C-alpha cells in the first residue's frame, strides 16, 4: 500500500488519481500506524509552508515523517518542507535536505508556472528520463542546489528540481501532472 500523507495542502487527490491510472492503489491518511505500515509514502502538497508545518507539528506528523525508513517522495511543497528552512513565513522545516528554500527574485514572471526541462538529472527517479524532457511546475519558492540535488532546473536561476538523501526523494515539479514523463518518474519511485 502507498500512503499519501493527508494534511492541509491541495493536490492530494491528483496524486491518488495518478497512482490509480498507473495501476497502484493509495490511501490518503494521517493515521500514524497506516503511514508507518505503508510500503511507500508520498508527501504531496501545494500551499503555504508556515501553515503546512504548523499543521504537521500540531499532529506530530513532523517527527513521524523524518523517522520513516521506507521510500518517501515529497512533491512540490512536500520537497520544500523536507528542506532545512523556508523563507515563506520564515519557517523551520523538516531538515532532511540541507538546503534553504527561497523566493524567486522577481526579475521574471513568478510563479514559475508551466513546463520546463532539466539542466541535469541523475539517480533512480530519472531512469530513462532525458534532461530534455519537460515536467510541470507551479511554484514561487525554490530549494537551493545542495549535495542532495539529483536534478537541476533553470528558471531565473538553477534550483533543485529533485533531491534524494537515503530513502527520501523529492521533486519540485508535479509528476502527477506531467503527462508521460511524470508517469515514468512516478513509476520509477513506485518500483524502488
Amino acid at each position: 500500500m502507498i500512503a499519501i500523507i493527508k494534511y492541509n495542502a491541495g493536490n492530494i487527490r491528483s496524486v491518488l488519481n495518478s497512482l490509480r491510472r498507473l495501476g497502484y492503489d493509495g490511501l490518503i491518511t494521517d493515521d500514524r500506524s497506516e503511514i508507518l505500515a505503508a510500503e511507500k509514502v508520498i508527501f504531496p502538497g501545494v500551499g503555504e509552508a508556515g501553515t503546512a508545518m504548523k499543521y504537521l507539528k500540531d499532529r506530530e506528523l513532523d517527527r513521524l515523517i523524518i523517522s520513516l525508513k521506507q521510500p518517501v517522495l515529497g512533491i512540490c511543497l512536500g520537497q520544500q518542507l523536507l528542506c532545512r528552512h523556508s523563507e515563506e513565513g520564515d519557517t523551520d522545516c523538516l531538515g532532511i535536505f540541507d538546503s534553504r528554500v527561497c523566493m524567486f527574485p522577481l526579475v521574471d514572471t513568478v510563479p514559475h508556472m508551466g513546463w520546463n526541462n532539466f539542466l541535469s538529472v541523475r539517480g533512480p527517479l530519472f531512469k530513462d528520463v532525458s534532461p530534455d524532457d519537460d515536467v510541470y511546475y507551479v511554484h514561487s519558492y525554490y530549494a537551493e542546489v545542495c549535495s542532495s540535488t539529483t536534478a537541476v532546473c533553470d528558471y531565473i536561476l538553477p534550483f533543485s528540481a529533485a533531491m534524494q538523501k537515503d530513502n527520501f526523494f523529492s521533486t519540485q515539479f508535479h509528476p502527477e501532472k506531467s503527462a508521460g514523463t511524470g508517469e515514468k518518474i512516478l513509476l520509477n519511485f513506485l518500483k524502488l
Partner: protein
Amino acid sequence: MLKRRIIPCLDIRDGRTVKGINFVSIRDAGDPVELAKIYAEQGADELVFLDITATIEKRKTLADLVERIALEINIPFTVGGGIHTLDDVSVLLGAGADKITINSAAVRDPGLIGGIARNFGSQCVVVAIDTKYHQNDWIVFIDGGRTPTRLRTLDWAKRAADLGAGEILLTSMNNDGTKSGFAIDITGDVSRHLGIPVIASGGAGTMEHFRDVFYSTGCSAALAASIFHYGEISIPDLKNYLKNNNIAVRI
C-alpha cells in the same frame, strides 16, 4: 527553458462541449472527458473548462464532471463558471481541479481573489478578463461579455495580480470567434506590466496567429477552442510549427 503553453478551452453546457462564436451562436462539439483525453495525449499543456452558462443561470459547480476529468487526464486543468464563494472553490479543487477561474465574480467582489489565494494559494487563482476595445480604450466586460464595466483592462489586471491572482486569462471579445488572430496590443500591454503569467485568448484561426502572439507579446500561453475542436489545427502540427519558428514549446 520554460515552454510557452498551448491550452485548448472546452466550453461546457449541460455536460457537453460547446463553443460560442462571438458569444452568440453555439455548436456542439462532443463529450468533454473524451476530448480532454485526446488533447492530453496530443500534447496539450493544460486544459480549461468553462461553464459558459453558469453565471447567467446561477448554476453551481461542475463537480461531477471535474471528478471524471481528474480521474482520466495527466496534465493540469482549470475550471470556471459560476464560482462565487470559497465553498465553490473548495468543492472544485476537492474534486480534482488544479486551478479555478473567476471572471464576473472577481469584478463584483475583488476580495474573493485574495480570499481564494490565502486559503488555497495564488497558484490556483486564474482571473479571467473579457476585454473589448470600446470608445478608444480596452474596457472590462462581465456576465459573459454582456455588461460593460468602467474598469480599464490594464488597471483591472494589475489590481487582480496585486490581490493575489496567480494568472490572467485575457480574452479579447473583438477577436473571439473571428479567427483573425489574437489581440496583440492589449495582450502585449498586460503581459509587459504584470509579474504573473498571462494567457492570450480569442481570435486564433491559424498556426501563424499563435506564432505572432508568442513573438510579439510576453504571454506565457495561448488558448483556443473551436480550431482544435473541429480539427482545423492539430496540436502536434501546431507545436512542431512553433518549434520550427524558434518558439520554445513542449513536444
